[in-house]
Each structure stands twice: as C-alpha cells, then as structure tokens.
C-alpha cells in the first residue's frame, strides 16, 4: 500500500521517539517500503554537529543503524533551515514531496493547552500534506 515512508526525527530527543521508530520499522516491513529519516538543522553549530556536514554524518549513521536493526531499506534526508524553530513545518512539508513519501510516521506529544497557540508539527503536517500521516503519541 505504501512505497516510501518519511520519518521526521529529532536526534537530540531519541528517547522520546522509540514508539514512533518501532511503528516506522513495522510499517516499512509490512509494506516493503523504504524509509527516509528526515531531520532539520540550522547552519549554526548545535549539540548535534559543528556544521551541517557533521549533522548529516550523524543522521546517515542513524539511518544506517535503523536499517540494520530492523532489516529495512533506509536513507537520510537533511534539511538546513535559517530558523528551525519556526520553519520546521514548512521544511517538513517540503521534505514530503522531496522524498516522494506516501506515508509520514511521526511522534507527537499529547496535545495540551499550548496546542491552542502553537499547533504540534504532526497536526500541521496531517492538515496540509497529501501523504497519509500516522501520528504516534508518547505514552
């Protein structure tokens, strides 16, 4: 049913992604789909790399590790943004078409009061993307 799965990941908070990553792997195996692990970074140095090159190396390593662990086909897709905090939704929307994904699987925290002011990324993507979206809530 699905050929290409896009999985947005925040490498700084992998502990919160475990459930979503398992869902990604299960869906990939069930449909024989390849996975694009997508992550957004700024060009400025951050905790995950001094520059986008280092960040990409990390993301590639992560994708390779997921592929090995779950026996799936996976690649990495990095997006460089001027202002990740505010641009992340648009960047992910763009990534859906760049990766030609037909399914997006992403983790999202339980909605709360803050969602009235700043909708979660999952909410925004599912509202605007043409791909199917699977939002995995944390426990």
């Amino acid at each position, binding site marked *: 049913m699905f050929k290409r799965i896009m999985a947005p990941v925040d490498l*700084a908070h992998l502990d919160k992604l475990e459930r979503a990553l398992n869902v990604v792997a299960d869906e990939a195996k069930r449909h024989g789909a390849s996975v694009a692990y997508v992550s*957004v970074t*700024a*060009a*400025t*140095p*951050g*905790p995950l790399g*001094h*520059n*986008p*090159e280092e960040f*990409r190396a990390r*993301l*590639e390593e992560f*994708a390779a590790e997921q592929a090995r662990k779950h026996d799936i086909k996976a*690649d*990495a*897709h*990095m*997006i*460089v*943004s*001027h*202002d*990740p*905090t*505010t*641009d992340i939704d*648009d*960047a992910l929307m*763009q*990534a859906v078409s*760049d*990766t030609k994904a037909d399914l997006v699987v992403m983790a999202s925290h339980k909605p*709360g*009061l*803050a969602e009235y002011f*700043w909708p979660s990324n999952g909410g925004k993507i599912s509202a605007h993307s043409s791909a199917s979206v699977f939002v995995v809530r944390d426990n």
Partner: protein
Amino acid sequence: MSDESANQGIPDPEGHSEVIETDYEIGQDNVEGTFGPFGFDVHNPVFLISGLTIVAFVFYALALPEQAGAFFGWLRPALTSTFDWFFLLAANFFVLFCLFLIVSPWGSIKIGGAEAVPDYGYPGWFAMLFAAGMGIGLMFFGVLEPVYHMAISEPLGVPSPIAEDGSIIEANVDAARRAGLAATIYHWGLHPWAIYAVVALALALFTYNKGLPLTIRSAFYPILGERVWGWWGHVIDILAVFATLFGLATSLGFGAQQANAGLEHVFGIPNNVTVQIVLITVITAVALGSVLRGLDGGVKLLSEINMIVAALLLFFVFFAAGPGGIMSYFVEGLSTYARDIFSLSNPIAREDLGYMQGWTAFYWAWWISWSPFVGMFIARVSRGRSVREFVVCVLIIPSLVCVLWMAVFGGAAIEQVLSDPAASAVKAQVIDSYNPPMSLFAMLEGLPLASITSVIAIVLVIVFFVTSSDSGSLVIDTITAGGKIDAPVPQRVFWCTFEGAVAIVLLIGGGLGALQAMVISTGLPFTIVLLLLCWAIVKGLMAEKNPG
C-alpha cells in the same frame, strides 16, 4: 547514501574550514523542561541571571529615581569626556583594521567554509543589516544633526552662518554647510560600521568556521581558551544580554515619545504616557508577530518592507527638495568627509570639545554598546560571504547609503534654513529651541504633501522600532539559550514581551534616561573587548587554511 534539500535557498554547505576542537558540547549547560504548557531550553545560569539582573536594575531605577538619574547622568558624560581620546583612537583603529582585511590575503577566506554559498541574497541581507544596525537613528538624526552641526556645534572650529539675531552671515555659509554635513557623515559612516563589522566578523568566524556556539563568548576562545565556557563566558554573555535588552527597551521608550510627538503634530493626538504605552504595546505586538514567523517569514520580510518605505521617503525628499541641489550636497558632503575625516578623528589638541566629546565620543560609546546585538545579528545572516565581500558590504556600502541619507534629509533641511531662516520650521525646532523629535517633521513641513509624508514618517519610525525589537529578541534568545537557535518558541515570546514590559515600566516610573546612560556607559568596557576581538579575528584567520 543521502540526499539533501536546500530549504529556502540554502545550498549545500561546507567545504574546508578549521573546526576548533573543544570538549565543550553545545547545550551541555542547558536546562530543558516545561513551564506550565510551555517548553523551554535555556542556558544555566545565563538566562536566569540576565533576567534577574535586569529586573533588579529596573527596581533600582524605580525605587531611587533621583540617585539613579544623578549617578548615570554623571557617569555617561564623565566617561565620554575623560576617555574621548580612547574612543576616538579605538574607532580609528577599527576602520583601519577593516580596510586592512579588505586588502589582506585573508580577504578570500569564506565565512562558513571554502565552498559555502551565501544564505541570503543582497537585497534581503542589506535590508537586515540596515534595519538592525541603524534604523531609527537615521530618522531621528537625519535632519537634526546636519543642521545642528552647521549652525551650533562648529565642528573643527568652522564658524556658524547664523548670526545672533537670526540673520545669515553669507561669508560663512559655504564652509559651514559642508562642515555640518561632513561632521554628521563622520558619525554615520565608516566608523560605526567598522565597529559592527569587527564584532560581526569575529562571531561569524568562530561560529561558522570554528564550530563554536553562536554566542558572544565564542569570539573570546582564542583569548580565554576553555575558560570561556565557565564564569568568564557567563559574564560576557550576561553583559551582552543586559546591554541589548536595556538598549532596546530604553530606545523603545524614547521612540514612543518621539512617535507621540509626531502624532500630536499631525493628528493632534495628546502627548501623554497613555498614548505612549499604547504605542509600545503596538510595536511589541508587531515584533512578537515577526519573531513568531521566524527569521525569513518575519524579520527579513519586515526589514525589506522597512527599506522600501524608507527608500520611497528618501526619493520623495530628494525630488521635492530639488534633485540638483541635493546632488551637490551629496558630492560636497562626501568630498568634505574625505578631506576632514583625518582632522575629525584626531583626538589631540582639539578645540571643538563640545562636538568631539558631546557628539563623537557619545556616538562611539553608543555604537559600541549596541555592537554585541547588531554584530551577532549580522553574523547570523552573513554565512557564505568571503571576508573581503563581508567587510566591503558591511563597511563601505552602508556608509555610502548613510552619506546619501544625510545629504538628502540634512541637505533639504539646511537648504530650508538658509534660504528663508525666518519662516523655517527646522530653524525653529533645531536652532531656536532644541526639540529633536520634531526636527524631521519640521523639514517635511517645508516640502509639498507634508500631511502625507509626515504620516509615512511616523509609520517608518514605528516599523524601524519593530525591526530592532524583533532581531534583538532573537539575539537575546540565542545568547540565553547558550547559542542554540532552535530553542522553543515561547522563549523568544518571553524576551520580546519582557522588553516591551521593561520599556513601559520605565516610562511610567521614570528612569529611561538613567538606564540609557548606563547602557552607553557599557561602551567603555566593550571598547576594550572589541580591541581584543580584532586580535581574536587575526588569530582565527591565521588558523584558517584557504585552499581557494
């Protein structure tokens, strides 16, 4: 394998650059969590101490307004008149240093690595440089300064063309007109932009080439080494936050008073604290919208709109005041600036102390106290430029634009004063009585369509404040998040709102003047800091191998 998409025009980064190896991990001192429904990710202790110190100083100014006013009212002029030579010599050094960088072989080193491509095209980049760097000052001083220097401050001893009885002394006119313009251009030309360029280049280099976090302390790595991650660095960052927030808040408070003066003049809206609070609230609300939309969707867009409106006003004044006359002001201003720059920047054996200490040294302290904020913002948006291109674009081009601006606004105003002194509103507001906020409106009154252009001018004053406020909030947020630019949104909302709140509290309680004097006083220690930065830049560039 990987593929990479360039979001919003950012191409593949990188190429060779020399990353500094340090054990420090960006974000290692940060505290993450949630406050009610809102997430946060802040540097410990920079965020907390900066916030608390700012609150403490606001309380001090409110609780002891007279003492605070007297102390800082004494401190600022005391510093600028005692250390005038130091400010002048340091600023000269920054200009020479920048000019040297243009011709040095290091000029070809690229910010962000040998193959980095610019993040922003020229129009957006210039708009952001300008809106953050000078913005409101051009509106406020564009008429005031040329007229004031021509008629009153007598820079380099050039005598005033206005006699005691208000008549014109023809013999003095030509020299005074040139001197007034040149003395103004000196304050808005190479020197201030060299100050910004030094800070911006240091930060851009240590962030994009050396891989250190985007925060003020990083530029001190060559000097302080690993100590920069401890209390030395905390103090540097806290000072920068402090100067930025108070600088923004106090000029926001004064700006509201200026805009109010304009509104009273045009629409007869009463000039009182309530109206000014409404103005601050509106400016803060628009700035808030801008930071919520982010760097590209908010700050850059607003800066561009700002530049377009400012350019329209510039063209209008240019044509309405007579293009021929204004062109000759431009040529005269530029040539006199080129001729007088050496004597104006010489601090020794000067007799025009009122001008040199009251204006020049004051300006240098002012630009320097703003430089952490403006420098850091310029650094953030300058990735992908070569050092030579960076310095030319941050030093030479903005200086020329300022020359043009001063020639147009100052030239039009001087023309009005000299051609019909008795009827000139500019003469009434600047020379006869000293009423700075009204000077721009007085000049526009002497041109056609004053009712329309005055409204545009008020809008422009307000938008200029918004563009300072939003970029300032981003800078403070980044510093207090330990150099992370992806901290949760509520944090930038906090700083933007806090800035407006501080402005309102100081407006109601008094203390704007005292705290602004305090901010400008920070110019003295920061001057020493900037001199050290030049050395850090040299060390940084020397370590950079440049295969291209």
